[in-house]
């Protein structure tokens, strides 16, 4: 990689409890993040996402391993690392004692912006994250989501080369999430800001991240683009509904097409529906092309397809296939409620 903003080799963090028990929070984290990209850390609670971030931003020294952030070593030059990055932590960054506007302005000054520039940036972020109405309130009186918006504004204040965000969108309403993403993406597109963030919202990682790193029990268990991960670890699923008499013929055609696409389990699953129809569903690759092909073939065989559906996999399926556990069980935070996320797409009869 030409110019990685983060390059970590074998980072490890072990916590020791007071009773001497060891918790390996991060194990052998090796990664490179290319300049100007958006990388998402995904994983269940306790996977080690925050700890990884906290080592990279020099808040805690690694037990072993080393890393360069924006070209500076996190252990030898923590000061230079800190002056090149912005950070939004998982906890509230805004002090309960401070008024929102004051805190933003102080943050600008702390990052070496001049008074004027700090004011200007405060105004911009107040607009972008819609903080106008709460700008003069003390942070302890704000709602959770309002506080979160202020936290994010604080992290964006310095307009850094690299921005690390620990669950930035948790607790935000959909409108605020949209605003947050709009602002983050604008920063990246206009200034080439590199981003590393953790999230429990799989749809965000899916939609915005160039790269998804799935972390579990301190280890990176998958690292690729979202679509590549989905292709590798979970396929599309095509479901067709036909009359019962046509089910066998349809099943054979579907099996053939699925096998051609390279599906590992081309045998369609059948569900009889109450209305004298059967629903057949099969795992395939590149479902959108294959669906057209199947319908075309079935039409030639004079099979009348009553309903057709593609379930596209989500990162949740990826995680499920990787670990045998659902990300969803660990977190009810995900807003990703596309029907595809429910395995119960097997018909109306239930």
């Amino acid at each position: 990689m030409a110019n990685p903003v983060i390059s970590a080799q074998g980072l490890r963090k072990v916590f020791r409890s007071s009773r001497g028990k060891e918790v390996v929070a991060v194990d052998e984290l090796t990664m490179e993040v290319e300049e100007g990209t958006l990388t998402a850390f995904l994983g269940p609670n306790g996977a080690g996402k925050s700890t990884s971030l906290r080592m990279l931003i020099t808040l805690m020294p690694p037990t072993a391993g080393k890393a360069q952030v924006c070209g500076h070593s996190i252990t030898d030059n923590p000061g230079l690392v800190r002056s090149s990055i912005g950070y939004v932590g998982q906890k509230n960054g805004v002090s309960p004692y401070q008024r929102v506007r004051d805190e933003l302005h102080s943050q600008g000054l702390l990052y070496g912006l001049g008074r004027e520039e700090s004011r200007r940036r405060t105004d911009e972020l107040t607009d972008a994250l819609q903080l106008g109405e709460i700008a003069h309130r003390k942070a302890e009186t704000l709602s959770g989501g309002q506080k979160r918006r202020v936290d994010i504004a604080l992290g964006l204040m310095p307009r850094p080369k690299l921005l690390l965000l620990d669950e930035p969108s948790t607790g935000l309403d959909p409108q605020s999430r949209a605003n947050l993403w709009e602002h983050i993406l604008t920063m990246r597109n206009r200034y080439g800001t590199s981003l590393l963030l953790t999230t429990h919202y799989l749809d965000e990682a899916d939609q915005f991240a160039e790269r998804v790193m799935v972390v579990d029990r301190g280890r990176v268990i998958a690292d690729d683009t979202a679509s590549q991960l989905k292709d590798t670890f979970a396929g599309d699923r095509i479901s067709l509904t036909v009359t019962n008499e046509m089910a066998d013929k349809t099943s054979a055609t579907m099996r053939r097409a699925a096998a051609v696409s390279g599906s590992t389990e081309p045998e369609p699953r059948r569900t009889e529906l109450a209305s004298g129809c059967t629903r057949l569903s099969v795992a395939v690759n590149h479902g959108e092309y294959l669906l057209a092909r199947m319908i075309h073939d079935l039409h030639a065989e004079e099979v009348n397809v009553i309903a057709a559906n593609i379930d596209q996999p989500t990162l949740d399926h990826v995680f499920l296939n990787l670990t045998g556990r659902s990300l969803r069980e660990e977190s009810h935070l995900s807003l990703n409620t596309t029907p595809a996320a429910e395995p119960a797409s097997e018909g109306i009869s239930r």
Partner: protein
Amino acid sequence: MINTTISPTTRISRPSGVLVDIWCVFLRELRPMLRDPFQLLTSLVQPLIFMAIFGPLLAGVTGESLGETYQWFVPGVLVMSTLFSTTMTGSNLLYEIIMGSHERMMVAPVSRAALLLGRTLKEMVPLLSQAIVLCSIAAAFGFRPHLPGLLTGFAILSVLGMGLGALSYALGIASRHQDWLFWAVQQTLIFPLTLLSGLLLPLEGGPRWIETVSQANPLTYVVDALRELVNGSFGADTLQGAVAAVVVLALGLVVGIRAMRRSV
């Protein structure tokens, strides 16, 4: 409507000078107080009660006038209110550590020393404004301090207050994993410190051990210095008081900065 202006001048932040950092931290700490100056009034209540009750009582015992009594008693009240308010200040930091805003400050490109020094410096502001108000009220009842002496006294008091504040911050940081510890230690320490310094009652003629203990208490020297100063002399007591305050400050800064470096 989503508004995404981002001003064009990208300024990559640089590690700013320590003095600038200290100033920024100082201003940040000061702002809540400037926004809400009435909170300073509440911390005046306790010392005023002491002045209103102990002043006449002591005057009754000694047979002196209230003004003469205040010449001796007000310095004690000033040291006491300094002790009470500055030793509590670490609880604010503790709360910020627990809530998370301190973590954000620790990630900013600001030296750890500045994080402590800026906060410590702020302690002077409530302390001096309280002292001025208390002296003015006492003056209405006959307190007649020697002005240059009083100003010197304020300087010594500020040094002491900053030292105690720094120690309180260190205590706040040390209590971050068990927050009850802060109040347990603070409450356990301030009463013996107050009572064994001759702030409120003269210690002369008391048992020997009390005198010995009070000699190890820096507050004893500061209050003696203030008593000398308000009466217009600058002697050995003043010097000892100044030294005691500087020692507390030096200790506070060393302990405080070390604690701040490990405050995550």
